[in-house]
């Protein structure tokens, strides 16, 4: 039973983390968490079966929602516990090293960049702001009013399309203005790809899916400003969430 080959799964890299912050938190498959240190840095790790997390295993498992969801959740729980206690750089899902020496080698190799990433996110949290337009005008046309002729049908179709275009333009413009203003209030910002409504569960067309890195002391003002902007624009839906661990802001510069 003990000859199952394991590897080290990395959740996050923290600076000056008090190990007590992870008390009561377990890693994937209920395995205990451990810290691998290099100077001020500590990588939060646990053992995972290598067969499940090697390239072939991952290729298969990432396609399996029943595997992916609990894995993502556990990854997130560990990062949450660390991020309230110390500056934390969350790692992407399924970062695997063969053993603690390999983890330490990574910390050494990336030390300067990790310290810079942690400087960026220290004392900050991530907020998500999404902007959605109201459901499409074309769908609001009653289906029970058939066009009198082919020409009438085409006219209607064209009118609906041009109305849609101007609505889309207005929405994009609003998204740009909103983002510009919120970016000013934040330490950093990133735009992510809009989410499919079937995945997000949000109605309407997503025209902004942005992440903002906000200092803890500015969080209340930031949230209040988002809500004000939302109230000023009843034609759109503003979805604000946070504070979250700085998922979108801890990446290393990759050149």
């Amino acid at each position, binding site marked *: 039973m003990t000859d199952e080959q394991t*590897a080290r799964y*990395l959740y996050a890299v923290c*600076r*000056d983390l*008090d190990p007590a912050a992870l008390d009561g938190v377990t890693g994937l498959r209920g395995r205990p968490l451990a810290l691998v240190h290099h100077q*001020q840095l500590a990588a939060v790790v646990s053992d995972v079966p290598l067969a499940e*997390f090697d*390239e072939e295993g*991952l*290729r298969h498992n*990432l*396609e399996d929602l029943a595997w*992916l*969801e609990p894995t*993502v*959740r556990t*990854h*997130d729980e560990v990062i949450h516990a660390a*991020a*309230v*206690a*110390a*500056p934390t*750089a*969350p*790692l*992407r*899902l*399924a*970062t*695997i*090293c*063969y053993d603690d020496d390999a983890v330490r080698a*990574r910390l050494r190799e*990336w030390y300067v960049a*990790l310290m810079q990433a942690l400087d960026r996110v*220290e*004392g*900050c*949290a991530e907020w998500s702001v999404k902007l959605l337009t109201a459901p499409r005008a074309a769908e609001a046309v009653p289906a029970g009013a058939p066009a009198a002729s082919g020409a009438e049908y085409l006219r209607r179709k064209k009118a609906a399309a041009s109305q849609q275009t101007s609505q889309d333009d207005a929405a994009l413009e609003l998204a740009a203005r909103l983002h510009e203003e919120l970016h000013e209030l934040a330490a950093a910002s990133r735009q*992510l790809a809009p*989410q*499919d409504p*079937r*995945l*997000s569960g949000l109605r309407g067309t997503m025209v902004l*899916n942005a*992440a903002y890195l906000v200092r*803890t002391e500015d*969080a209340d003002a930031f949230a209040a400003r988002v809500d004000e902007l939302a109230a000023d624009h009843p034609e759109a839906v503003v979805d604000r*969430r*946070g*504070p*979250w661990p700085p*998922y*979108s802001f*801890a*990446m*290393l510069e*990759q050149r």
Partner: protein
Amino acid sequence: MTVAPSGTAAGVAPRQQPRDLAPVSLVDLLDRLLGTGVVLAGDVVVTLAGVDLVEIRLHLLITSVRAEMERERERERERGRQG
């Protein structure tokens, strides 16, 4: 054993970490953990790095949702025919 965090030892007050963090939805997590949460390349998954993975993942989900919707529509058509 107690170890003073080196940030405080130098007399520099560390900036306040947020005390409370809200939960993150699955789709927002996938956005971030597969797409942008890149910090450190591990030994194993280097070749899996990149955005294409998210796209594969989301494409798959959408395909399954679409199939679900198709079945729903089919059932409605069935009901329509019977009624």
